[in-house]
C-alpha cells in the first residue's frame, strides 16, 4: 500500500534529515514508527503524503508515485487520512462542519450526505452530542477523536498518525488509543508515529526504529520487543519501558 524506497531529505545542503529510508506498509498492516526526538520519524510520515518534499528516492501509495510531478496530489492526499499531534481542527467551524468541509469541497458530496456520514463517525468515536460545538469547547482527547473522525470521513485507504497522543494529558491518551485500536482491528492500513509502546504491542504488525534520520531497525513486533538487534534500539526501549 505504502512503498518508501531510498528516501533522502535535506533541509539545507549540509543538514540531512532523512538518509536512505526504505520500508513499506502492506494493506491492512499496522506499522509503528518510534525513535528519539529529532530522529526524523515525523518528517518521514509527512513525506508519505507529500506535506514535506524530499530530494531523493521514491514514495508511492497504492501504486501512485507521490513524487511524480504529474500526480494529482490533492486527490491522492484525500485518500490518505492524517492525524496530527496538535489535532489541527479548524477552530472557526463547528465539529460537524469540520467533518463536512473536505467531504463537500474535495469529494463533492452533497451536504446532507456529508452530515450523515459525519454523524455516523462522531457516534463511532463517542462524540455525537458534541456535533454543534466548536473545537475550543472540547478537551484535547475529544478534539483528537474528532480529528480521527474527520480523516475517516474521507473514506481513506490508509491512515497516517503523527504522534497523536503526545500533546494529551495522560488520562486522555487511552480514549484516543482505544479508537485507534478499534481501527487497527478493523483492518485499516496504518502508519503510526508514537511512543506508546503499549499500543505497539497490542496492534502493531511491525515496528520501525529510527535514529538520526535512518531506519535502524525494521522488525516484526515480537522480534522488536523480544530482542532488538541494534544497541541504539535496545537502549531506547530500556529507557521508555523501564517506567
Amino acid at each position, binding site marked *: 500500500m505504502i512503498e518508501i524506497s531510498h528516501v533522502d531529505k535535506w533541509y539545507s545542503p549540509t543538514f540531512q534529515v532523512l538518509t536512505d529510508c526504505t520500508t513499506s506498509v502492506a494493506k491492512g498492516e499496522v506499522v509503528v514508527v518510534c525513535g528519539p526526538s529529532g530522529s526524523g520519524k515525523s518528517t518521514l510520515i*509527512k513525506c508519505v*503524503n507529500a*506535506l514535506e518534499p524530499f530530494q531523493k528516492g521514491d514514495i508511492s501509495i497504492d501504486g501512485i508515485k507521490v513524487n511524480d510531478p504529474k500526480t494529482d496530489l*490533492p*486527490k491522492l*492526499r*484525500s*485518500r*490518505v*487520512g*492524517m492525524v*496530527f*499531534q*496538535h489535532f*489541527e*481542527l*479548524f*477552530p*472557526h467551524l463547528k465539529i460537524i462542519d469540520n467533518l463536512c*468541509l*473536505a467531504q463537500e*469541497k*474535495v*469529494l463533492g458530496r452533497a451536504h446532507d450526505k456529508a452530515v450523515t456520514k459525519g454523524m455516523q463517525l462522531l457516534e463511532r468515536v463517542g462524540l455525537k452530542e458534541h456535533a454543534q*460545538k*466548536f*473545537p*475550543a*469547547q472540547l478537551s484535547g482527547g475529544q478534539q483528537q477523536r474528532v480529528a480521527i473522525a*474527520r*480523516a475517516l470521513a*474521507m473514506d481513506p485507504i490508509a491512515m497516517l498518525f503523527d504522534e497523536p497522543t503526545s500533546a494529551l494529558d495522560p488520562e486522555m491518551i487511552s480514549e484516543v488509543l482505544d479508537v485507534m485500536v478499534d481501527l487497527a482491528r478493523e483492518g485499516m492500513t496504518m502508519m503510526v508515529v508514537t511512543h506508546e509502546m503499549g499500543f505497539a504491542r497490542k496492534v502493531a504488525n511491525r515496528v520501525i526504529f529510527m535514529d538520526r534520520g535512518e531506519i535502524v531497525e525494521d522488525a516484526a513486533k515480537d522480534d522488536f520487543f523480544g530482542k532488538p538487534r541494534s544497541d541504539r534500539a535496545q537502549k531506547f526501549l530500556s529507557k521508555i519501558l523501564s517506567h
Partner: protein
Amino acid sequence: MNYNWNWGIFFQPNPMGTGTYLDMLLAGLALTLKTAALAWVIALITGSIVGVMRTLPSKGAYWFGFAYVEFFRNMPLLVQLFLWFFVLPEILPKAAGLWLKQLPNAPFWTAAIGVGLFMSARVAVQLQAGIGSLPRGQKMAATALGLTTVQGYRYVLLPMAFRIILPPLTSEFLNTIKNTAVAITIGLLELTGQARSMQEFSFQVFEAFTAATILYLLVNAVVVTAMRFLERWVAIPGYITGK
C-alpha cells in the same frame, strides 16, 4: 484675542447658493464617506490579494508582494496623490494622459484609488501577519485533507486570519477615512475642504473646524461601534478571543 464668535453661522446661507453653511459641510462629509468607502474596498481587496501572495511558497509571488508593499508604504501619501494626479498623466502616452486629465471627477477617483492603494499595503502586511500567526499545522491539515491551496486559504486560513486581525483592521479603516483629508490638496471638496472654504467665505475658522472635527469624530465612533459588533458577531465560542 479679538474673535467674533458666531455659532449661528451654520444656518446662514452660503455664498454658493447651495443652502446653508451646514449643508456645505454635510456635502463635504458625504464626499468624504464616498471616497473613504471606495478607498477601503480597494484597500481590502488588493491588500488581501497581496497579503496572501506574501505567504505563498512561490518565490515570485513573495517578491511581487514585497515590492508592492514597500512601494506603497514607503512614500508619503501626499506624494503618492501628487504622483497619480499631476505626474502620471504627463508620463503616459499623449492620448491616455489627455483622457485621464479630462476624466470627470478626477480628484475623487484619484483620491479613492490613491488612498486605497496606500492603505492596501498596510492591509497586506497585517493579513500576512495574521496568516503567519496561525499554527503551521492548520495549512498542513487542510492540505492533508486534499484541499487545494486556494481552498485551504478560502475555507481554513483566511477565516481565522481575518478574525485575528479584525482589531487592527478597525484602525486601518479609521485611518482610511482620516487620510481622505489629504485629497484637499488635489482639489477634492471633502469635509476638510469644505471646512476651509467655509472659513474663507465667512472667516469663522473656529466654528468651521470645530464642526468638521465633530463630524469626523462621529463618523469614526460609528465605525468603531460597528466593528465591535462585527468582532462579537464573528467571535468563536470557547476560542481565546471569543467569549
